[in-house]
């Protein structure tokens, strides 16, 4: 029983060209927004659709509302930082359809100063996911209702999950922060 998916996986790995039109998501997007898709990937039974960022919101609405896809659950919004690329930021959206038990991954590439449209109007849960993404990477989402830091303190400097941020924080920052915030203790 456990062997069959493994074979599938190996097939997927072995560069066999995949007919992406068998995926209903791809078909639907191509039908409505023919130039939205930049790239398609299939790895370990998971479909990744790389989108042009202008189309993101429209595609999300399409995938949520279409009766054949019904992606009614936004699992998460993830930032990834590739400092060496031309467009260093990647925003990854994982969608899940409760009815069809299917997953799909949407991706948008962003330049250093580029913003991406917030998917808050599609799934309100994007609120916190995008706030976390902003908190950790400094990726800005336009039209987000409340874009503030969420896990770190309001006055934190820098975006810790970027690759150029050292693990222990910038040198001297911790001492400085403690000094500012524990001034009461220092007085005692």
């Amino acid at each position, binding site marked *: *029983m*456990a*062997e069959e998916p*493994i074979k599938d*996986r*190996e097939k997927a*790995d072995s560069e066999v060209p995949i007919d992406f039109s068998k995926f209903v998501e791809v078909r639907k997007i191509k039908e409505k927004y023919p130039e939205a898709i930049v790239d398609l990937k299939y*790895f*370990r039974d*998971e479909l*990744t659709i790389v989108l042009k960022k202008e189309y993101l919101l429209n595609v999300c609405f399409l995938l949520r509302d279409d009766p054949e896809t019904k992606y*009614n*659950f*936004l*699992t*998460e919004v*993830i930032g*990834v*930082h590739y400092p060496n690329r031309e467009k260093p930021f990647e925003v*990854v959206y*994982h969608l*899940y359809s*409760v009815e069809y*038990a299917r*997953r799909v*991954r949407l991706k948008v590439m962003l330049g250093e100063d580029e913003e991406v449209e917030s998917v808050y109007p599609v*799934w*309100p*849960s994007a*609120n*916190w*996911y995008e706030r*976390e993404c902003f908190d*950790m990477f400094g990726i800005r989402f336009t039209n987000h209702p409340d874009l503030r*830091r*969420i*896990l*770190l*303190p309001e006055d934190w400097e820098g975006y*810790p*999950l970027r690759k150029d*941020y050292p*693990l222990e924080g910038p040198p001297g920052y911790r001492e400085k922060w403690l000094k500012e915030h524990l001034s009461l203790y220092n007085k005692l």
Partner: protein
Amino acid sequence: MAKKIESKVIDVLKRGTPFGRLEEGDVFNENLKIEDVWINMGPQHPSTHGVLRLVLALQGERIVDMEVVIGYLHRGTEKLAEFRTYHQFIPLTDRLDYLASPAMNFGYVLAVEKLAGIEVPIRAEYIRVLMAELARISSHLLWLATHALDIGAMTVFLYCFREREMILDLFEMATGGRLITTYYRIGGVANDLPDYFLDRCEEFCEIFPKRVEDYDALLYSNRIWLSRTVNIAKISAEKGLALGLSGPSIRGSGVNWDLRRSNPYSVYDKLDFEVAVFDGCDVYARYLVRRKEMLESCKIVKQCIEWLKKNPGGEVQAKVPKVFKPPVGEVYQAVEAPKGELGFYIVSDGSQRPYRLKIRAPSFANLMSLPEMCKGHLVADVVAAIGSIDVVLGEVDR
């Protein structure tokens, strides 16, 4: 006389009241204005289950507005992951939801195995499921204990701890750790179960359903319990899904969605269990879901024991190199953790360390629907609502 009283009142207001203080330059108006009282609930509060902080705007005791403030337990787990090898990260996953650490390990090792295409020995799969389900029972027991305590039922708390203790003993027997077990490894589990473990586990499965009856005697049809939970903190299925609610909390709103059934992983497709779904949408329905889930988990544990007894011996660990380098790529693996959908998104660049690791923590997403649930309710219901979505702050803040 009236002037005298007024000046006295102004004096008192200037000295400060619990509502605030009359500052210089403020005009004391005869037409009293109604203002919301802002109350800070947490981060140190007996029933915010850790360091959750809620800022409540109250009119009397009724909640007008609410903000959830998190991050007090942020440890930068995702950043740490980028500086550790795949093996080294396993202990850190324990510290996410520290009340059900095997379930957390499970999600992570499954994700890595999916990334690297590792096949796990079938015995290890059963052991994993067994431990994960025990963890689910233990987590739900602690949830029931604290939830009931929040609503004032003190005895349930200690009853639940009695049974949780038995599970922790089982964990200790198999793994050496009680709370933080770190039992799972990439490609299997750390070691096979000790000989007497299955017997003790079977004993527990015999006792446990009877003990659930004990809790039922105190809560299930208790009038006070009903009046505190029925129709409290309602959230509809659509709204819950839109706000990212998952796991038992959304099953309490009538959504039949359990990842163990809908996207089966490991050996869940060979096990017989029912998905607990109730459509009350309220605190009571979520209580019923978790109550039934405990019993169903107990059933799964029994089946695992049966299988493990029938098939003794065999490998519990696939051959995974010490210097472990998965192929380039990205995977997302979700499991049904006790709190909801736990997902690990791993981006690999082919090196020993994950390039990026994102944890989709169920409690983090579940917390988003708390303001929606609580609006218009009383302070006492906030406590019930927090309890009913079962947050663990280690997981929320990561």
